[in-house]
């Protein structure tokens, strides 16, 4: 089998070999019952699919994509021959099937891809303490045994700890679920230095919720049935067609069919806008705040409570503070109110449409139109993505958004919404109708992350995600001391670091963190880099040791967390672990043994028992507000699973749940209007802010951000032009002379991937080619044609991509597909893989923002060899 895989790149991989590889789980299996292996296509399995000859198994699909859907795999004689999605009940908009997206449906090509990691691998020139460290990323690979691999990892861990202490070990991830087992083992070993940051949330992260009165995450907006009441939906930087997969955008289509008008505010006329028939109002990257302030200006200057009621004055007075000098919170300077800031009373600069137009690019007439579109007497949903918050110094944005939503009173009523609703939040908010049960294993930081037996982190030091590699290279970086992952609190102070080891587990820190070129340097500096991974991403490739981890399909199963709020997906093992890949817990246990620790202290029972516990403890919400067990468990179930437990009564039998893979509740019985209680009675149901109201002026928000010591924040949503933003693209702003890097670039959460997951999937590469998008006007200026290979450069790095020349982008703005794996040219250092973090190096700002969408670039036609499509590149087959 190994030689088979070795000699083929996927390009040459024949159907016959593909089927052989898909059968690898039962190595040595005679491929009987498949009919002739020479059947060119898969239709021969139709019979098995419909008549019960084959077995459909619910497969895990648990990527950070924005949903959880039902994916099933047809197993015929031990071979995974095909996938399907939810067909457990008839489909309707009210009670829809949980249909999977293009990514989930391509998993068969992923799990059985020729490049899946099969054996523990060692970099050829690695020796204890690193060896020729400069060869990381370009060295050859050697297959080694698990015993050798774990001995090496344990030796390096012990060396790092004894020579430099646990603070020399960098685990460059927020405390993430897939890494639970190994992170726990490392904490037990004395801990590590971790990271914190705002990640994908940008300035829509937790601080703004804590301080200004926002509903956050899946409480942000109303439920999907209520959205049918909206007359106008205004979308800022949203693309749910791509980033709320599964049923996410299907719910939007219902709102369209119900007759709502959509307005799309974004530099890119994307698929969401096109399918909703939205009116497109293009604005430049990172300039949303100026547009919002100009809308406020129009509302303030044109409102007349009698003849032209645009502003909801009752709402402002009753529910907010800080709008004008009569509504200030206690202790605040009355001059520092929102209205006077917008009018420019004290700073001499009215934030009028003309002012905004110069920055955001939307004509003053359109800005005025927009102000009237959202006026108080209409049922309006103001929705935003997080993309516009992944911008340098954008802390004012969510606050400005809330200010405008408050001025027009779009809170707490049917048909009215104001909030961020990307990803799994979507337009289907409200409490989850279930809680995923604990596996009952001891867990570090459990109070924070829902584990059963909480243990305290031995080290709480967390480096901001943007500065991870600086900490390694320069020996100092700003860091906070707290146990949280996605929020900084307290001072972010300069600390000294002496990092000697980078431990990666399933994440892809190198390709998803800003400053990837520095990341490569950092990886090449330390004494040891290990990656636990399923596929050879950049992070794995720049390591010394790769430990192959099983995929969701090979693991015992789990209940998907963070999915849709009305469907519980419970998956099962599809195939036994392929080749020598091992589950997380096995790796953690074996590593603990090598480190001289007792694994029973953290992993007292099997993965099967853990899943059983989780199933047993999962609860569903009854319409009366009571939580009851989901699963009915019998004595036979317990015997069959070989686990410890007691029979219990629930809503669905264990066997039935696992066969169906899904338990779906009737959402109509659980309705949700965001802010409803607060609007009904603001005294009895206050916001969790200092003033107990929505804070347009928030001293607490300003203090929380300012205390970090990165940026000073005004209590008002004051526009701050960020680093590498539109203004910075000019060498002379006044006379509008462009600088060396004249184009703004942002990265798009891409349909063909979930972050860097699936970037190596041939089916998806063929369908989604991960280009760089540029406007036809800019392309003409640079003599670039559709499909040309182009060189894109920033101060920080260079990449090649093929150009998608389009009429759908605002001139001056470029967009790159997020998540490409790097492929650095050995001579030039240019990334032929097109990873956007090679380009992005924007410094951390505000509340700790990772400004992924603040990039200034220059572009030219590449005169060297043209890129071939990713789908035709040879696969990275290490063994």
């Amino acid at each position: 089998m190994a030689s088979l895989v070795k000699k083929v790149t996927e390009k040459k991989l024949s159907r016959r070999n593909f089927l052989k590889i898909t059968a690898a789980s039962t190595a040595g299996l005679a491929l009987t019952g498949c009919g002739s292996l020479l059947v060119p296509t898969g239709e021969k399995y139709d019979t098995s699919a419909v008549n019960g000859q084959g077995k459909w198994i619910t497969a895990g699909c648990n990527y950070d994509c924005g949903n959880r859907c039902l994916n099933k795999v047809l197993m015929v004689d031990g071979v995974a021959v095909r996938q399907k999605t939810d067909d457990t009940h008839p489909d309707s908009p009210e009670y829809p099937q949980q249909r999977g997206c293009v990514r989930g449906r391509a998993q068969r090509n992923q799990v059985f891809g020729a490049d899946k990691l099969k054996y523990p691998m060692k970099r050829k020139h690695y020796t204890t303490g690193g060896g020729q460290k400069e060869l990381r990323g370009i060295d050859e690979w050697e297959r080694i045994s698990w015993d050798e691999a774990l001995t090496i990892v344990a030796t390096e861990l012990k060396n790092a700890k004894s020579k430099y202490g646990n603070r020399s070990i960098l685990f460059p991830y927020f405390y993430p679920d897939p890494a639970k087992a190994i992170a726990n083992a490392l904490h037990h070993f004395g801990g590590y230095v971790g990271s914190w940051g705002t990640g994908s949330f940008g300035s829509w992260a937790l601080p703004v919720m804590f301080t200004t009165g926002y509903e956050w995450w899946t409480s942000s907006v109303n439920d999907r049935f209520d959205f049918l009441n909206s007359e106008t939906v205004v979308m800022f930087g949203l693309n749910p067609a791509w980033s709320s997969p599964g049923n996410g955008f299907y719910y939007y289509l219902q709102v369209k069919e119900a007759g709502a008008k959509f307005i799309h505010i974004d530099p890119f006329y994307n698929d969401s806008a096109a399918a909703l028939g939205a009116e497109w109002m293009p604005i430049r990257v990172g300039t949303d705040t100026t547009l919002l302030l100009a809308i406020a200006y129009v509302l303030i200057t044109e409102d007349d409570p009698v003849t032209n009621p645009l502003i909801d004055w009752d709402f402002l007075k009753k529910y907010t503070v800080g709008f004008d000098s009569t509504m200030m919170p206690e202790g605040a300077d009355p001059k520092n109110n929102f209205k006077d800031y917008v009018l420019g009373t004290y700073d001499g600069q009215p934030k009028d449409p003309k002012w905004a137009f110069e920055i955001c690019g939307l004509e003053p007439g359109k800005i005025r139109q927009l102000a009237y579109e959202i006026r108080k007497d209409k049922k309006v949903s103001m929705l935003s993505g997080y993309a516009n918050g992944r911008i340098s110094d954008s802390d004012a944005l969510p606050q400005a958004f809330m200010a405008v939503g408050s001025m027009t009173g779009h809170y707490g009523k049917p048909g009215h919404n104001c909030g961020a609703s990307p990803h799994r939040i979507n337009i289907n908010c409200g409490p989850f109708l279930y809680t995923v049960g604990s596996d009952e294993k001891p867990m570090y930081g459990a109070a924070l992350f829902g584990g059963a037996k909480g243990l305290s982190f031995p080290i709480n030091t967390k480096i901001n995600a943007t500065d991870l590699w600086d900490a390694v290279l320069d020996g100092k970086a700003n860091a906070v001391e707290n146990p949280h992952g996605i929020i900084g609190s307290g001072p972010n102070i300069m600390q000294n670091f002496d990092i000697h080891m980078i431990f990666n587990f399933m994440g892809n820190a190198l390709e998803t963190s800003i400053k990837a070129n520095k990341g490569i340097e950092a990886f090449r500096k330390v004494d040891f880099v290990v990656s636990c991974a399923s596929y050879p991403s950049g992070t794995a490739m720049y390591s010394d040791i790769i430990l192959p981890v099983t995929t969701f399909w090979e693991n015992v199963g789990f209940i998907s967390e963070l999915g849709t709020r009305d469907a519980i997906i419970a998956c099962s093992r599809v195939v036994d672990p392929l080749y020598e890949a091992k589950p997380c817990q096995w790796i953690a246990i074996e590593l603990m043994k090598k480190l001289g620790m007792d694994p029973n202290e953290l992993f007292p029972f099997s993965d099967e028992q853990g899943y059983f516990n989780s199933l047993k403890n999962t609860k569903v919400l009854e319409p009366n507000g009571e939580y009851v067990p989901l699963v009915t468990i019998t004595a036979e179930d317990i015997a069959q699973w070989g686990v410890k437990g007691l029979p219990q009564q629930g809503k669905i039998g264990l066997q039935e749940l696992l066969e169906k893979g899904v338990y779906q509740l009737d959402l109509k019985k659980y309705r949700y209007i965001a802010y409803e209680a607060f609007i009904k009675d603001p005294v009895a149901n206050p916001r969790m802010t200092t003033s107990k109201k929505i804070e347009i002026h928030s001293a607490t928000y300003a203090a929380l951000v300012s205390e970090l010591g990165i940026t000073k924040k005004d209590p008002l949503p004051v526009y701050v032009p960020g680093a590498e933003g539109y203004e910075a693209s000019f060498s002379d702003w006044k006379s509008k002379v462009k600088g060396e890097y004249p184009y703004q670039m942002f990265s798009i959460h891409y349909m063909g991937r979930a972050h860097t997951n699936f970037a190596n999937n041939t089916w998806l590469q063929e369908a989604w080619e991960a280009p760089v998008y540029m406007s036809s006007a800019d392309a003409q200026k640079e003599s670039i044609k559709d499909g040309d290979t182009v060189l894109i450069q920033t101060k920080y790095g260079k990449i090649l991509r093929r150009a998608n020349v389009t009429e759908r982008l605002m001139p001056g703005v470029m967009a790159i597909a997020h998540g490409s794996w790097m492929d650095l040219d050995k001579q030039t250092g240019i990334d032929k893989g097109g990873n956007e973090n090679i380009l992005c190096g924007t410094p951390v700002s505000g509340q700790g923002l990772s400004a992924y969408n603040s990039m200034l670039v220059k572009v030219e036609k590449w005169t060297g060899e043209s890129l071939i499509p990713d789908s035709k590149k040879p696969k990275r087959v290490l063994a």
Partner: protein
Amino acid sequence: MGRLGFYFNQDNCIGCRTCQIACKDRNNLMPGELFRKVQTFETGAYPASGLYHYSGACNHCADAKCVKGCPTGAMYYAADGTVQHDDDKCIGCQYCSWNCPYGAPQFLEEYGIVKKCDSCKELRDGGDNPVCVDACPMRVLEFGDLDKLIEKHVAEKSTNNLSILPNSSITRPSLLIKPRQCAQDKYYFEKKEV
């Protein structure tokens, strides 16, 4: 009973290509082989830009040129009226590929024969839909009796003619499309990189 065919609500299609992947998965196709293919087109000029997709497979035409042009009888009409392919009779001459104005029949180099969308006939005979139909997260594909589909979607301005497609009088495709408005623009360009 009328002819069997596909309905495609293009107006609601987001071009996600889940149908294409589900088809690829069911048919075990290699890179370069697509029995159902989603293509992306743009119209207009910034900022009056248009965008639409065409999810196309075999249209099981009433005047199927592939059947007509097949010298061995490998392409044939099944009893239900769909166009089917007999692998054993195929000599790989590709006349069908050249004759089909929709580019549906695909030459499989490894086997030296042509194959195409069979509208998941065996699945349908077993009571299921074609996999592309049941895969679509936006529910824009349907398959069935064309007369009934026309009746069901009578309120829509449905058609089997788009600017990007050959005139339906050529092969009389079993196809019904609810077009996105800009798909009727005469001027369009296909996006190869998506």
